[in-house]
């Protein structure tokens, strides 16, 4: 019996190409190669947002999305949370992280605790900073919106995976006058965040956030590798469109089994 799924050969080839390119750039970054990563306004504004909250004596609200830790956007969000928590620890600002998913809650708590420890301010950390709310999407939205209206945080971070609650949270935050930084890879929710937030991390910017903020060469190398793969994919799409339009390689298509 043949175990390998030959219909996924193209995916395997792209996967191997992607791994090789990313690993090559990570190696290059580790050996001291200079890698330019473009400026991401939303990430540069994080320090400004936390600073503003500190000056106003109000809290920083961080919403890590509504999905679990098996979602890549949540992992990317926790990387940003680590940076935000480091800043609130340094500045002495109050941080509030309400959670919908219990596994994300456990990870977020550990992330914030370690960020305070690394910032040299474990005394400022307390268990109530990262708390669990509910597993229900709209009950969670009601609770977070209530916090925005009652406590009026000076900075709202809405970073992670969001669905129908994205506009409810972003508009409530906008009405409360907070500076808002959002980020998601959910294409349907992006227009809402762009409308209602001051800065929005769009798709890949969210995944690049951890690397961008840490400035660690190996992480930046992976972003560079990803960019080159994207360029290769774009070139393939253009070539594919040209060849398809000119009916070139039709025989090749049937040979490799594409209908």
């Amino acid at each position, binding site marked *: 019996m043949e175990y390998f799924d030959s219909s*996924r050969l193209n995916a395997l080839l792209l996967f191997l190409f992607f791994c090789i390119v990313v690993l090559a750039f990570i190696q290059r970054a580790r050996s001291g190669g200079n890698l330019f990563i473009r400026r991401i306004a939303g990430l540069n504004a994080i320090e400004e947002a936390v600073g503003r909250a500190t000056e106003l004596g109000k809290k920083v609200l961080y919403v890590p999305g509504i999905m679990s830790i098996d979602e890549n956007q949540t992992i*990317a969000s926790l990387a940003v949370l680590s940076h935000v928590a480091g800043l609130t620890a340094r500045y002495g600002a109050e941080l509030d992280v309400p959670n919908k998913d219990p596994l994300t809650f456990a990870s977020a708590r550990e992330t914030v605790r370690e960020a305070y420890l690394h910032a040299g301010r474990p005394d400022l950390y307390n268990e109530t900073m990262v708390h669990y709310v509910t597993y229900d999407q709209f009950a969670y939205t009601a609770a977070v919106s209530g916090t925005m209206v009652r406590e009026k945080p000076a900075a709202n971070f809405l970073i992670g995976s969001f669905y129908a609650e994205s506009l409810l949270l972003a508009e*409530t935050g906008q009405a409360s006058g907070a500076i808002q930084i959002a980020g998601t890879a959910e294409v349907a929710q992006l227009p809402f965040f762009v409308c209602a937030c001051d800065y929005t991390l769009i798709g890949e910017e969210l995944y690049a956030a951890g690397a961008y903020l840490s400035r660690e060469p190996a992480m930046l190398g992976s972003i560079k590798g990803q960019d080159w793969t994207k360029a290769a994919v774009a070139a393939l799409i253009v070539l594919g469109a040209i060849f398809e339009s000119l009916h070139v390689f039709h025989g090749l298509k049937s040979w490799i089994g594409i209908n």
Partner: protein
Amino acid sequence: MFLKVRLPIMLTFFAGLIPIVAFFFVDGTPVVKKLSNSLEQDMVIVSGFALLLGVVNVVQGNVRKIEPREKGWFYAIVLLAGMAFMGLFGAAGAMRLFGLPGIGMMPDGRPTPFQWGSLYMFTPLQATMFALLAFYIASAAFRAFRIRNLEATILLVAAVFVMLGRIPIGEPLFGPITEWMMQVPNGAAQRGIIIGAALGAASLSLRVILGIERSYLGLDKNE
């Protein structure tokens, strides 16, 4: 060091690698597919235990509000009472205790206490939150469509065409234009974002599997 750093990274490596390998194998392949399915089931079990941790956190947080009579302490009592009501009747129904036939309806057509709470308390509250979306869309659209510069003007004109094309009176005239706008310029932009996001997700996954990205474990690069 081993338990805090190396073991979680090793577990992440294997847990991340198995679904990737399983993706390239046909269904029915021994070991690989079984391991991959088993990982998914384990995730559900771990989530169940983590939910208990969440419930404990909710109780602790709200008791902490009630004791010193913090602002809004009364709502903490309402929350705890609601949680106790649904939790107790849900568990009793699921275990068929006190003559309850389950968590759905009674044999005579009346709702069980859990179902009553769900139908007449929880569902209307959920619907209320969801219904608010209509008002928020209106306020967000008002802000987005204000003519401030060329881009906002283009957005407004495009939105007017799309809205007219999506209502019965405007569909015959604006329908084809709407379809073209949604499929061609909008579709192209969306595909660009989706391709970028997919590669970003793959790159992040690779960083997590290789142990380069560790912030989700509460670790930094020096650990």
